[in-house]
């Protein structure tokens, strides 16, 4: 239910983006910096890798392999952290080049859409770190791992959303 509501929230933002993007004959608008497609493409791969490690960690907890479970969970958190760091660095560069929320509709839409996704990844990362901490305390086992499962679902959601946003905002 929560993930459905989140999906509809992003659908609303994407709908607004489509109105401005398809309605404009020139995009990006003149005198606005171009988005870093290459670096963000690599960042996309990092985020997808984090979803793979999350899946492996879930597989490990299902067979009670505690060592692999914690290791893959930590890899997921590291990949998520790297994604956010690169995004933050790219944002700083874009602000330096003059792309701000108030510079144009282009800037406003970019920071709203990508910013909300970044915020969601940040929230998911905090949740993941809490799960990792609890995993180290031995709170999860083959019989009881609902906490990991729900965190994994949310993480998969934010990862699955990113290629859609990347394709729409950076490539289209």
């Amino acid at each position, binding site marked *: 239910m929560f*993930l*459905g509501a989140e*999906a*509809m929230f992003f*659908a*609303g933002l*994407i*709908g*607004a983006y*489509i*109105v*401005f*993007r*398809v*309605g*404009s*004959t020139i995009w990006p608008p003149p005198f606005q910096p171009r988005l870093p497609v290459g670096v963000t493409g690599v960042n996309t791969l990092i985020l997808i890798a984090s979803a793979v490690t999350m899946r492996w960690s879930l597989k490990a907890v299902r067979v009670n392999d505690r060592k692999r479970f914690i290791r893959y969970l930590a890899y997921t958190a590291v990949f998520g952290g790297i994604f956010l760091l690169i995004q933050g660095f790219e944002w700083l560069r874009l602000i330096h080049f003059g792309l701000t929320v108030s510079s144009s509709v282009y800037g406003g839409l970019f920071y709203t859409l990508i910013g909300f996704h970044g915020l969601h990844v940040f929230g998911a990362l905090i949740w993941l770190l809490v799960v990792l901490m609890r995993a180290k305390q031995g709170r999860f086992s083959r019989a009881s791992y609902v906490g990991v499962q729900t965190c994994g679902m949310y993480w998969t959601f934010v990862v699955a959303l990113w290629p859609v946003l990347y394709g729409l905002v950076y490539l289209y």
Partner: protein
Amino acid sequence: MTVIDRYASFWLDKFMKHRWIVPLCSGLLAVLANPLAIQACSVCITDAHDPTMDAFNWSVFFLMAAPYTVVVSIAGALFFGYRRAAAKREQTETTEPLMQLAWNDKESGR
């Protein structure tokens, strides 16, 4: 009074009994005189193939499809989750005994 006059007067009398018809007809005539006021499509404000209209149409199409996509995704996840759980249950519920009890063999005289 001719036959036609009488006929017209009869129907006018009948018509005037329902007084609400007069303002209704006047309103409809006024609206028909100004076709823009009765335009059904709220986004058909420009010519065909106009980028703004295309943008609105694509956005509406996307937002219309989004809830169905969400519901199908959740249903798919539940379906595959159920299938996985059923397969797992089948694996664990085998007919083989979990352990061989030694006294069973002894008592049966094997």
